[in-house]
């Protein structure tokens, strides 16, 4: 399949839509006109895009958890708990892994088994199997906006059902929900599937309903250099806006070095605006989401609180629009609702305390911003070049060529040649560039930064250093020093 960054043809979309809605029986519950009415009747405080805009004006960083269980009542109970006991500003519905792979029959099995054993056997909420009305029950049971969070390469049916079901925000994208979440799915396919999702959102938009879209920033969550995730975020923003999306939250996963993380948040929307303008797209409303450290966590809960709080502090100092919260159970398993609420409360304490503080602009911060901008532009300009000016085509070809390369990604459509490592201050740099198209200056910068660390540790940078960095935070460090 070839894919280009053009708005989907309406007739083609309608034909495809009929197929999509037949993928599982609950597809029959979707009626777009009625869904638009339903969405329009939601009070403003339950619409994520409005809440984000409000927060942006007031300089607030919101806190949002991840959460989802197999059964409806239990899921509602969970969300209410996170709202009331955690103080979540916005809620999620995290989708289970079978649904993410469109394995609805297995999801059904998981639902039934959960009923039998009396605990959730699924790692999320199987929204497709539950259907439109169940989703509405969820949305109506809480007082804050609810977003769909998942990791689904082909999320067309999931989008149909959850948007008709009253969710006002939909995470993911054709790259960010493929490369870290699939092994064998061609990128052109998922980009095409996500054009469908974005087009659907565009249709809601045209009928007066604002749905926010959120490309998944952290990718594999493990030592992803900001330029890589920024490049993906910008591409997904461009693709979404082309399909008529008007409200986007761009994501970034904490790396752990304060300056690098703040610089990353600062540059993220700037770069998106830059490329949207360059391609004649927009205007759109852009906000940011900061993910607390997405890689391996310490098992000890007290240490996990330390990691969580440091993420909250960075998000606040960077003035991200919202922060996705981890929990003290992270290293062990899906959190109990109590542990989840506790993660939110620790986060909000820090966010509130830092609400009116920000990291002052310094030479060092500016230098980090400059390098992220230069790196991201180097990648994105190459993407446009490879795509003959088309971002979709360019994205597919860039992954083929390793121009974009996501560390540790499971997809065979990802080159997997890049190797990241931390520098002496813990910023994530690149040890092996693979085919990422950096000029001499940028390469030298990375080599020097990692070189300094190697010197301090009296060892040559190697894959062992990368492994040490992967384990580091879980072992209570940021930089994986040799013992």
């Amino acid at each position, binding site marked *: 399949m070839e894919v280009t960054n053009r708005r989907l043809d309406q007739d083609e979309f309608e034909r495809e839509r009929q197929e999509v809605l037949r993928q599982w029986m609950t597809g029959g519950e979707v009626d777009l006109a009625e869904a638009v009415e339903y969405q329009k009747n939601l009070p403003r405080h339950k619409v994520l895009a409005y809440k984000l805009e409000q927060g942006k004006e007031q300089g607030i960083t919101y806190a949002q958890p991840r959460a989802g269980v197999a059964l409806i009542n239990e899921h509602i109970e969970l969300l209410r708990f996170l709202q009331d006991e955690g103080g979540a500003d916005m809620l999620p519905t995290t989708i289970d892994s079978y649904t993410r792979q469109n394995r609805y029959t297995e999801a059904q099995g998981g639902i039934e088994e959960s009923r039998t054993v009396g605990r959730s056997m699924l790692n999320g909420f199987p929204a497709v199997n539950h259907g439109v009305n169940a989703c509405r029950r969820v949305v109506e049971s809480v007082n804050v906006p609810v977003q769909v969070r998942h990791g689904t390469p082909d999320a067309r049916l999931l989008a149909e059902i959850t948007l008709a079901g009253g969710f006002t925000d939909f995470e993911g994208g054709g790259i960010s929900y493929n490369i870290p979440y699939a092994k064998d799915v061609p990128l052109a396919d998922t980009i095409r599937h996500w054009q469908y999702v974005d087009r659907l959102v565009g249709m809601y938009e045209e009928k007066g309903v604002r749905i926010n879209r959120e490309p998944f920033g952290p990718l*594999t969550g493990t030592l992803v250099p900001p330029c890589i995730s920024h490049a993906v975020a910008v591409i997904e923003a461009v693709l979404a806006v082309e399909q008529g999306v008007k409200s986007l939250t761009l994501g970034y996963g904490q790396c752990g070095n304060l300056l690098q993380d703040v610089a990353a948040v600062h540059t993220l929307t700037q770069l998106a605006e830059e490329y949207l303008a360059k391609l004649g797209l927009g205007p759109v409303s852009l906000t940011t989401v900061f993910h607390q450290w997405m890689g391996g966590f310490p098992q000890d809960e007290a240490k996990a609180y330390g990691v969580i709080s440091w993420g909250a502090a960075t998000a606040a100092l960077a003035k991200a629009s919202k922060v996705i919260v981890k929990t003290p*159970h992270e290293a062990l398993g899906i*959190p109990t609702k109590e542990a989840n609420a506790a993660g939110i409360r620790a986060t909000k304490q820090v966010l509130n305390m830092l609400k009116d503080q920000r990291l002052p602009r310094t030479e060092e911060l500016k230098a980090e911003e400059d390098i992220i901008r230069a790196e991201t532009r180097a990648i994105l300009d190459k993407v446009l070049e490879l795509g003959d000016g088309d971002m979709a085509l360019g994205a597919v070809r860039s992954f083929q060529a390793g121009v974009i390369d996501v560390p540790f990604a499971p997809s065979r459509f990802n080159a997997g040649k890049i190797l990241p490592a931390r520098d002496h201050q813990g910023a994530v740099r690149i040890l092996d560039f693979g085919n990422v198209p950096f000029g001499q200056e940028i390469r030298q910068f990375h080599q020097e930064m990692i070189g300094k660390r190697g010197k301090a540790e009296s060892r040559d940078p190697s894959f062992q250093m990368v492994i040490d960095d992967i*384990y580091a935070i879980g072992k209570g460090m940021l930089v994986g020093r040799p013992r």
Partner: protein
Amino acid sequence: MDKPTLVLGVIGADVHAVGNRILDYAFTQAGFQVINIGVLASQEEFINAAIETDAQALLVSSLYGHGEIDCRGLREKCEEAGIGDILIYVGGNLVVGKQDFGEVEQRFLEMGFDRVYPPGIMPERPIADLKRDLGLEEGAGGGEHPAHGLRQHLH
């Protein structure tokens, strides 16, 4: 002597790839022939790879919580395929949520796994265990690990 061969993979609809990459590296460094079938691996893929490469062990990862559902029947399928005696280790975050590991271990041992590892285990221990279970360590034989013994007993 040929390197002992093992099949490594992440079972079910699970895409967690980082641990898989490290295990690949660590077992290779430790002298094993690693057949890495990667993430999203079905039981059949594990078994086919093992038969094709004449592997002595399966190293099954499950991180995402559906491990219990995904791993059920693997030992039986191995038996049907004529490799019923192959060593099967499993590790990762095997179940949904933070559960008592003793109970989780018990459940997987009863499902026919030889060794079951708690979340976040470092590669050193499974490498040593596998060497011992394969009789590769000087003066060591298989089976003295209580869990291993238990599985033998249950089968």
